[in-house]
């Protein structure tokens, strides 16, 4: 993954050998008159975990929410620039947001299971997208998704109990199961562990590592340790700018930009 500075037009083409699945070019985001992101250009490789780090209010969540167009929900939010997923411009007029979001799963900061049964939580997505034809297939999908999310063993005897009755960590894994039940290509995670205790966090991190085989994961995190533990690629945001992006070890050991270094060593943030 490479980042290219806004001014340096000659370097717009990514230099990475592997084909990136998500490419962002000069993405600006405005909340009314306030600019929240300035010309973000970033490549996100397939089947890897990319973490977006940076101090509060730096725009990392805003960027994440551009990728599945969740920002459309905010009336005053305006996005310019280009984001392509698998070569397709997602801000094109012809793009159906509903079908886009079906392929880009999202896991939110606070676990937000539907106040329905565990089964219904996972089954909802496949059902509305008509991914399954029979009740048996639906059961299979639910079971497979829960198993991939590492939750099946804990809940298999109480699938009809409310999802909101689970512990915080279990709820978050339920949300992950819900997201993967619709077979997305990309999973976006917005600080998925910020509301969880260290043990639940460890479980989620383990899960993220396993999911990387089949999915591209973009994760926003406050915790640099977490970024270092789970991600292969890291992008550092600061005050609406993408300061630096690259292989995680490189960012953490030999940051190029002084701001990155200050943040990593705890001087800003």
């Amino acid at each position: 993954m490479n980042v290219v500075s806004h001014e340096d037009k000659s370097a717009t083409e990514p230099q990475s050998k592997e084909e990136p699945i998500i490419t962002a070019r000069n993405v600006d985001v405005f909340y009314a008159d306030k600019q929240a992101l300035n010309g973000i250009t970033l490549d996100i490789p397939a089947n890897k975990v990319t973490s977006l780090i940076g101090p509060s209010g730096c725009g990392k969540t805003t960027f994440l929410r551009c990728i599945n167009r969740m920002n459309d929900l905010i009336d005053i939010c305006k996005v310019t620039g280009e984001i392509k997923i698998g070569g397709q411009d997602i801000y094109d007029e012809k793009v159906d947001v509903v079908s886009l979001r079906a392929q880009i799963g999202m896991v939110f900061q606070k676990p937000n299971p539907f106040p329905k049964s565990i089964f219904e939580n996972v089954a909802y997505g496949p059902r509305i997208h008509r991914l399954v034809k029979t009740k048996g297939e639906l059961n299979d999908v639910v079971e497979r998704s829960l198993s991939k999310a590492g939750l099946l063993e804990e809940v298999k005897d109480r699938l009809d109990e409310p999802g909101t009755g689970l512990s915080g960590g279990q709820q978050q894994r339920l949300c992950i199961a819900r997201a993967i039940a619709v077979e997305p290509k990309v999973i976006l995670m917005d600080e998925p562990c910020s509301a969880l205790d260290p043990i639940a966090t460890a479980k989620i991190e383990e899960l993220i590592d396993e999911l990387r085989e089949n999915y591209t994961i973009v994760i926003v995190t406050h915790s640099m340790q977490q970024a270092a533990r789970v991600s292969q690629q890291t992008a550092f945001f600061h005050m609406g700018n993408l300061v630096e992006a690259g292989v995680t070890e490189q960012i953490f050991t030999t940051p190029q930009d002084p701001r990155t270094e200050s943040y990593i060593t705890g001087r800003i943030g």
Partner: protein
Amino acid sequence: MTDFTKQSPGLKRRHAAEIRFQWYGRSAIFIALGFLFLMVGSITMNGIGAFTQTKLALEIPLTSEHISVDDLEGANYDALVKLALRNTFPDVTKRRDKRKLYGLVSPYASFQLKDQVLADPTLVGKTTKIWFTASDYVDMYIKGNIDISRDEKTRKLNNAQIGWIDAIQKQGNLEKVFNSAFFLGGDSREPELAGILSAFMGSALSLSVCFLLSFPIGIFAAIYLEEFAPKNRWSGFIEININNLAAVPSIVFGLLGLAIFLNFFGLPRSSPLVGGMVLSLMTLPTIIIASRASLRAVPPSIREAALGIGASPVQAAFHHVVPLALPGMLTGAIIGMARALGDTAPLLMIGMVAFIVDIPTGILDKATALPVQIFLWADSPERAFQEKTSAAILVLLVFLVLMNLVAIILRRKFEQRF
């Protein structure tokens, strides 16, 4: 170390202010409760009597000289009742006194007799004891509402009449029974026969129309405004207008109903259909405001969760947000209905203030409503109607309490934690 038991003057003042404030609150609640008990208590005291009714028994000579089995319809039942009264008090001879004597039973006693005879023709041929509704003054006297220490000329019952009543009572031919006519009858000019069923049915029909119109329109308006409408100057304008409509005096809606539903569309006057339509104009703002508030109370994370896995906005709203908001919407609707149940003014404007004896069976029949019935009875001069007024208020209050209870139960039952 400082002494924690020491209080600075400022701290003492703060504690005193706190205690004072608590007492203000307690006394405010005490005063409010006091007025509530006073109101309900006085209405109950006045109205409880209307749930019983005085009946008196007469020996009716249903013998062949007065009535023939072949012509039950044509018999003079009025004369039979009068004859029975005269037989009970043979010493009454003067014309004026006889008229006073006949006044002891309800003017409809002859119809009661006819109904009984038609229902059971075997009564004919012998003298039978039959119970009749006493006139309202007898009823008032038995319930102790007539002050017999007053001058005879200023009261409705003279000493002779009181003597007769006492005599009948001594014979065991007078008793107080549960007043079923009050619950099963329509309005009447005679207080002893007036009932609330026609008004109650009118209210029930109007409220049904009101609910069927205002609930769907209200919640769909609320869902659209809250979940789908763009937030711009127009939606702001609409919101302000809805909030203002909630505060418009109800008689204005009545005038609107008169001008549009009756005069322009020519819908039937005095009908529960128009009543319900006018009441739904009045309840709509309440339902919309309450529904929007309960939609807003659903955490946005639920919407995001649904949209995040690719639900369309309509699916997100109807699969997740609306079911969570529904208890609140129902509560709002029921509270709006309760307000509509108690409202009189708009119904006066569309003619639901008429004297309705028949019990309405459809939404196009002429009808009146409970609060209007109360208003009508409160306006009547007879002492007995005062009792009816309070009793009808009690019935209305019972239904208001029941509706609010349903609202609470629905909220408890369907409320989901998230």
